[in-house]
């Protein structure tokens, strides 16, 4: 029976090649999107799933609430770690650790030097009690018990001690940061499963003092939180979470910051389950300081929706074409029923056919999937691959997907077919009544609504992106570049020397030193105090450090007052937003205000024009520019900025000279020239990837929908061939016939357009709220996307109607 059904199914698939092709392609696009997106979603859901008692592992993070909003920090104040180490009821293991970096590690025996060591933490033995590593050498219980001890991951050990057995690595000595000897006490295997805990070097916590880091045993900095200070615990029992949370609340209250400017704010300690760390918790933080990727639930959800809609489009195609085709298959059903087939058997047969087509589509999509994934590689974490599709879970997922899609798309047509009464089929009454027309029209409208929403969204997102990337930010971004100076092995003299050398380069102008460029993702802010009507007021202010050339380099005008007198004088130049925040109706009046920072009184000497300090997603915030006066040993200077000039042919030569100057001063460090326009572009990486994704989704949605439309057109025109023949004999011309045939379909596309406008409008309104600066949702975008869609539909319909209208009536009227 089954074999027989499969055989028949296969033959009828071959018989209707065009329909089968459309069905398979439509479904395979949907399936392909589902597979690729499934692999992406699966990737993000498979992190840190393997830890023993993982469901009982929690991280404690800090949340700050102030009138400016809520912020979170994945770290905690260091003394909280001590409190937990001393014992908190309900906690089984307390494992604090600190993200850290070392600027140099040496294996002196082998004469090997390693620089800028990342992915390292300071931890104690509790870390290895909490997270189970495979120990290749060393004693897990004591490896991190004393100062000057380090555990290496296998990969790291192989780098530090090439061609050495792991057992022999233990006991060897490494020299950190030029002078600190540290003994290797253990080697652990790197996790084979996916994990955000990708640390490769574990320094004993007892060494913190030697490395000038905060010491848990003595620190009392309850009000300083660094994101690298991690506190993990294992709770004894999930039912005791409330108890632990109350203790955390009590601790937060007890150690509240009572400084006048912070007294209204709140700091909370929050328990974050291990499973949420990869998703950044509530605030979307990166999992750890050294993480390169944080999964976004909302992005994954949008992706899942895209996949779902593409799948539904494929299914809609299928239902459409097959219920349309049902009429041509009615005869077969009638015969089968007179031969004794039951309804159930008919349903089973057609579901079987659907299953074959869907499986075929799945096979096709397995080939297409790598091509699709390739398109998104730029903005996906590099670990994602389609290998998961061939794992047992992946295969199970695909099989489930095939079954669900088969049932979804096959059930209705099968149901329609199974209801045919043999007698009406045999009487040939059938061709007149055409049930399901409304359903097919509805499905077609649905397809075009989805496609149209995608088109409009893509255009508007693209328009917004163009707007923000091209809007004048208030600073010069073309032909401006800078170099970041090395943060270790550096001296003020070296910085001066490089600055002098760069200033000598002929092609460059407006060379200045600074901390950050005027627009960047890194922000420093501080609380400035001022007096108003005798009362002490506080203003959170972003600070930029730069010399007196800085404003010139970036073409930022001074509106009133003056530039600072020199690079190291204690004076501020503030922006208009700052003046407004302080309550000045006329911003220029801010000049002359005295500001208090700690114990110093610093005058505002100038007002600069507002510019955007970050992407246009955020507003302009109060800002002050100042020089390098803090102290000589802790200079704020860490970058040199310059204007490459208008002659772009000269740029590469100038940059080469900058690189040469660098090499002369920092022979051991790599130089990286950053271009301001690229920095600005980088603000919108996520939006660019959204556009990329939308473009693909749109293209595919249009493709599927148009194929569905084509199928429907083929079917309809074929049924009307005789009518067309008659009309032609009666004198209708080609244009009239085409119009006659197209009208019905264009109406559907038109209805879809009307429905899609408010949907797209609503979605884009939501999305664009994420920007402080918004492009207008112009009517012409909607209109042109509608017109575009009609033209595409017309092209699809036209190919077919033209042919039909051209058929010689003698031919179409000959039979019967």
């Amino acid at each position: 029976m089954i074999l027989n059904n499969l055989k028949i199914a296969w033959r009828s698939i071959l018989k209707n090649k065009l329909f089968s092709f459309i069905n398979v392609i439509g479904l395979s696009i949907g399936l392909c999107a589902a597979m690729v997106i499934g692999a992406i979603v699966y990737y993000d859901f498979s992190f840190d799933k393997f830890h023993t008692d993982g469901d009982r592992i929690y991280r404690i993070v800090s949340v700050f609430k102030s009138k400016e909003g809520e912020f979170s920090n994945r770290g905690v104040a260091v003394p909280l770690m001590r409190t937990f180490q001393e014992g908190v009821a309900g906690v089984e293991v307390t494992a604090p650790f600190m993200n850290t970096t070392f600027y140099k590690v040496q294996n002196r025996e082998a004469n090997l030097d390693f620089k800028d060591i990342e992915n390292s933490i300071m931890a104690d033995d509790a870390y290895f009690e909490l997270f189970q590593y495979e120990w290749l050498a060393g004693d897990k219980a004591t490896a991190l018990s004393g100062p000057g001890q380090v555990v290496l991951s296998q990969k790291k050990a192989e780098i530090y001690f090439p061609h050495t057995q792991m057992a022999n690595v233990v006991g060897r000595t490494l020299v950190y940061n030029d002078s600190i000897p540290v003994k290797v006490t253990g080697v652990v295997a790197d996790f084979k499963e996916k994990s955000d805990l990708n640390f490769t070097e574990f320094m004993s916590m007892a060494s913190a003092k030697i490395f000038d880091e905060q010491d848990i045993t003595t620190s009392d900095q309850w009000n300083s939180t660094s994101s690298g200070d991690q506190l993990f615990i294992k709770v004894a029992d999930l039912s005791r979470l409330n108890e632990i949370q109350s203790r955390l609340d009590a601790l937060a209250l007890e150690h509240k910051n009572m400084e006048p400017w912070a007294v209204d704010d709140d700091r909370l300690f929050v328990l974050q389950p291990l499973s949420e760390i990869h998703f950044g918790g509530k605030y979307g933080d990166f999992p750890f300081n050294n993480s390169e990727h944080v999964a976004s639930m909302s992005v994954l959800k949008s992706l899942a929706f895209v996949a779902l809609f593409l799948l539904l489009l494929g299914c809609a195609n299928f239902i459409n074409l097959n219920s349309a085709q049902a009429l041509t298959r009615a005869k077969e059903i009638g015969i089968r029923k007179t031969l004794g087939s039951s309804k159930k058997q008919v349903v089973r047969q057609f579901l079987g056919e659907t299953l074959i087509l869907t499986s075929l589509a799945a096979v096709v999509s397995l080939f297409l999937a790598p091509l699709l994934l390739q398109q998104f590689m730029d903005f996906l974490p590099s670990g994602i691959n389609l290998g998961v599709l061939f794992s047992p879970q992946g295969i199970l997922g695909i099989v489930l997907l095939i079954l669900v899609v088969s049932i979804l798309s096959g059930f209705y047509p099968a149901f329609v077919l199974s209801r045919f009464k043999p007698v009406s089929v045999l009487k040939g009454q059938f061709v007149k009544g055409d049930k399901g027309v409304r359903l097919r029209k509805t499905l077609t409208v649905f397809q075009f609504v989805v496609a149209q929403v995608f088109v409009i969204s893509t255009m508007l997102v693209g328009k917004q992106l163009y707007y923000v990337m091209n809007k004048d930010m208030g600073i010069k971004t073309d032909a401006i570049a800078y170099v970041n100076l090395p943060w270790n092995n550096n001296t003020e003299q070296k910085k001066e020397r490089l600055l002098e050398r760069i200033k000598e380069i002929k092609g460059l102008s407006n060379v200045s030193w600074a901390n950050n460029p005027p627009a960047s993702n890194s922000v420093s802010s501080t609380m400035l105090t001022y007096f108003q009507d005798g009362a002490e007021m506080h203003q959170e202010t972003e600070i930029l450090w730069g010399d007196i050339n800085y404003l010139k380099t970036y073409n930022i005008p001074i509106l009133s007052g003056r530039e600072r007198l020199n690079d190291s004088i204690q004076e501020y130049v503030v922006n208009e937003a700052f003046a407004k925040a302080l309550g000045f109706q006329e911003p220029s009046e801010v000049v002359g205000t005295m500001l208090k920072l700690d114990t110093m009184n610093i005058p505002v000497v100038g007002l600069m024009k507002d510019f955007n300090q970050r992407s246009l997603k955020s507003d302009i915030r109060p800002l002050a520019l100042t020089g390098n006066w803090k102290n000589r040993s802790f200079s704020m200077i860490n970058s040199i900025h310059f204007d490459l000039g208008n002659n772009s042919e000269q740029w590469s030569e100038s940059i080469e000279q900058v690189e040469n100057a660098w090499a002369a001063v920092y022979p051991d460090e790599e130089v990286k020239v950053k271009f301001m326009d690229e920095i600005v572009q980088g603000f919108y990486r996520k939006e660019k990837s959204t556009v990329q994704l939308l473009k693909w989704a749109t293209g595919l949605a249009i493709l599927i929908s148009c194929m569905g439309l084509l199928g429907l057109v083929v079917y309809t025109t074929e049924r009307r061939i005789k009518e067309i023949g008659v009309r032609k004999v009666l004198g209708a011309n080609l244009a009239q016939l085409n119009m006659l045939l197209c009208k019905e379909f264009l109406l559907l596309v038109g209805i879809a357009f009307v429905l899609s406008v408010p949907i797209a409008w609503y979605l884009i309104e939501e999305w664009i709220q994420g920007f402080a600066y918004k492009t207008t949702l112009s009517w012409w975008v909607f209109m042109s996307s509608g017109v575009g869609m009609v033209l595409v539909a017309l092209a699809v319909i036209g190919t077919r109607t033209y042919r039909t209208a051209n058929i010689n009536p003698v031919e179409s009227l000959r039979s019967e």
Partner: protein
Amino acid sequence: MLLQLNNIFKWVNSGGQRIFLLKDINLEVEEGEFISIMGPSGSGKSTLLNVIGMLDTFDEGEYNFLEESVHDLKEKHRANLYKEYIGFVFQSYHLLDELTVQENLEMPLIYKKFKGSERKAMVADMLDRFSIVGKKDLFPAQLSGGQQQLVGIARALISNPKLILADEPTGNLNSKQGEEIMELFKQLNDEGVTIIQVTHSEKNAEYGSRIINLLDGRMI
């Protein structure tokens, strides 16, 4: 008695008017009969045949088939009944285009849940009996009309029905082919199969043992 129709009426409502397709049909058919139904086009021959074959319903009257009251049966039971006892032969053959001759013959057996080996034997038997062994792997489109109808009859016969209903079985055939089909019916009837056929041809009707004439849905 194989079947019995008592006061069968069938009508459709159209524009507030009741149009009768069958009017007061009374008919008894014994096993082994060979009946020809005749009448002008549109007189209700096909409708009657379909009612007898349980493919179509009726509005009034009683229909007993082998002691079962067809008018009281649910659709599913009716389907089981005709699946078991009735074979259909159509004017336009109605073979499944996607299936070979052999597979067409096999189809009813599959629906009756015969085992694979049994099916093979029965199909081989039937191919042999109708001398179409050489055509078994051809598709319907590759056969002449007469050959297709042969296959149609073979298919109707394969599960040993008690009754064969044939609606103008020779309507699409030339006279020589038609004659062959009639000879075949005659032979089957001699072997004990009950046959009811619709025909326009007096000559073909003569093959039967009884002729029923219909006019406007009424037996005359």
